[in-house]
């Protein structure tokens, strides 16, 4: 080897040693910080990763540093700080799926859908199977009313996360909104199989079955929430029995509801409807007035009951 290349090689090796040492020391720092993060010591992570320390990190360590700092701020409720660091992180690592997903999720949680949507779109562009990206887009599309597109994104999400009961539930609800009740039922039953302890899925399923006109099945699904005295389930049972013209059962359901929630406006409404059916307008009007008074002012229930009370008064 001639002298010049040997000298060059020597210089390069000499330069690489401190760089390697610095990378190793950065990795040690990151490991320590991750340990602290996992132990919930978020303020310590923040204190150690002030901007000066962050700048000492390189490459992958720097990327993880931004993730840790943003997540720590997020955990301590300092969302604006978290947002700032995720944004800088995304600027430094524009194709990093993790940082993109975190920034998009944070914006999405804050309701900043217009800012979140392009980030989720970028995620699925980088990785067409990116479940977090598809889930974000599914939720945004659902909230905006693009239900067809939302369904597609939920399906893509579930290809990656087929065991996520919460996503099957969301998907089922979305299909219910799109009035695709049969598929909604299947999705919700899948969610229930994955998370049988989640009563909310049963409530969703009951709504879908009722919307399909399968009232008896819907009432059967409600049995357990009714037994455990959930006012919502008791309300639904009273209303659905009324709709079916099963007056006596509806009356019994109202009694059960009233024992849990004595001034529940729906219980009073159902009582009024039963009085109307019996031709007792004065009693109906009384219940409707009580229902209107028991509902939050200007709520839909209050307005309906007040209008019906006035109508019943005119009929007397």
């Amino acid at each position, binding site marked *: 080897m001639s002298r010049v290349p040997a000298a060059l090689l020597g210089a390069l090796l000499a330069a690489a040693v401190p760089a390697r040492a610095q990378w190793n020391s950065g990795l040690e720092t990151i490991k320590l910080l991750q340990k602290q993060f996992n132990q919930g010591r978020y303020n310590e992570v923040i204190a150690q990763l002030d901007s000066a320390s962050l700048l000492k990190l390189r490459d992958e360590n720097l990327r993880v540093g931004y993730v840790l700092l943003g997540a720590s701020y*997020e955990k301590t409720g300092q969302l604006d700080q978290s947002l700032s660091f995720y944004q800088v992180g995304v600027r430094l690592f524009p194709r990093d799926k993790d940082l993109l997903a975190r920034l998009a999720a944070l914006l999405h949680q804050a309701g900043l859908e217009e800012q979140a949507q392009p980030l989720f779109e970028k995620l699925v562009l980088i990785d067409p199977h990116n479940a977090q990206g598809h889930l974000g887009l599914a939720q945004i599309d659902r909230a905006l009313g693009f239900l067809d597109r939302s369904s597609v994104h939920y399906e893509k999400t579930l290809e990656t996360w087929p065991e996520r009961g919460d996503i099957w539930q969301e998907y089922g609800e979305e299909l219910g909104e799109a009035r695709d009740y049969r598929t909604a039922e299947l999705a919700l039953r899948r969610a229930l199989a994955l998370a049988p302890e989640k009563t*909310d899925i049963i409530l969703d399923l009951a709504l879908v079955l009722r*919307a399909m006109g399968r009232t008896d099945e819907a009432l059967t699904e409600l049995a357990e929430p009714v037994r455990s005295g959930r006012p919502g389930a008791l309300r639904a049972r009273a209303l659905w029995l009324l709709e079916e013209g099963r007056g006596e059962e509806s009356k019994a359901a109202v009694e059960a509801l009233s024992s849990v929630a004595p001034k529940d406006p729906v219980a009073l409404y159902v009582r009024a409807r039963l009085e109307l059916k019996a031709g007792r307008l004065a009693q109906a009007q009384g219940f409707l007035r009580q229902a209107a008074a028991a509902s939050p002012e200007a709520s839909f229930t209050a307005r309906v009951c007040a*209008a*019906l009370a006035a109508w019943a008064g005119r009929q007397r």
Partner: protein
Amino acid sequence: MKSSPLYGRNCPPQGGQLDSRRLAASRMVCLFAACLLAAQAAWAAPDYSPDALLRAHLWRDLISRPVSRRPKVGLVLSAGSTRATAHVGVLQILEQAGFPIDAVAGTSMGAVIGAMYAAGRPVKRLWEVAANLNLASGSNMNSFRLIELMLADKLLSSDNAERFTRSEIGGLRFDQLPIPFACVAMDIYTGEAILFHEGDVATAVRASMNLPGVFKPVEYRQRYLVDGGVVDYIPIDAARSLGAEWVLASITESDYHSARPTSVLGMLEQVIDIRGAVLSREQRQRAQFLIEPPVGDIGIYETGRVPEAMAKGVIAANKALKPAMENLLLFSLEALARDWGTAPAAAPSGGRP
């Protein structure tokens, strides 16, 4: 490969090899990310509030009834050229929700969309048609004709509009439409608003969207007809003439305050928009419910922004859907209650759960 904390147990190694230290770091990040993800994907609680249950209960009752036992619902689609393609988005949401529509009235582009919907064309098709809209749609416009229009005062023909409507809905007459429909044009010699609710639909639609100053007036029964937007931008009365008792109007007015037209056609559009807005002030009061997609900044010739207009229609209508349902239910209460004393309000199915 970068670690992917958000993917929890699904963080797959993608391309490249990880050294053991980076892998360890990635795993640790995965751990904390799984916790974060769990926090983000909260289990949703279905809405069993009194308002939600009562709304669904009354809605099932309403939509299960024949129109003779509930108020007749009219949908009004305003004029607005390219902006009015937002109506397609509005229709998509209404149809998605199973909103009853018993009569449709439209002016200009609202008439084109309304006629297709009343003829039973699926909203998906309306979406496709609108997405392919360009300046030559509905006219014989090309560079030569445009020069003729500018230099020789030779108006364009809107024959293509009629041909297009006929290709979509055939030669249907108004009385053959599955949903009653009416549209409005203006007699350029008398200034009268001409209400179409009988005869050939395609001819009426062409007259309704026949922009004055650009297209030749359509000669029809000794009248010379131009775009109805000049006299009846939001044709509420047309819907009333079809028996609509509760009217939902989708309005796509221009925000002419911010527009600064620099061309002859732009000026013409501005004048029509201002006139339309002035006339529509009173009409707005006569509708029971308004949906106004924010498309005021979209110009008449900006056909490239049609997808944006339709998307804005979807978003605006989706936001307005629940209040619109509640408004219609409150309006319908007496009609519903009249039957409650005698028969159960059983409803088999339908509506959002």
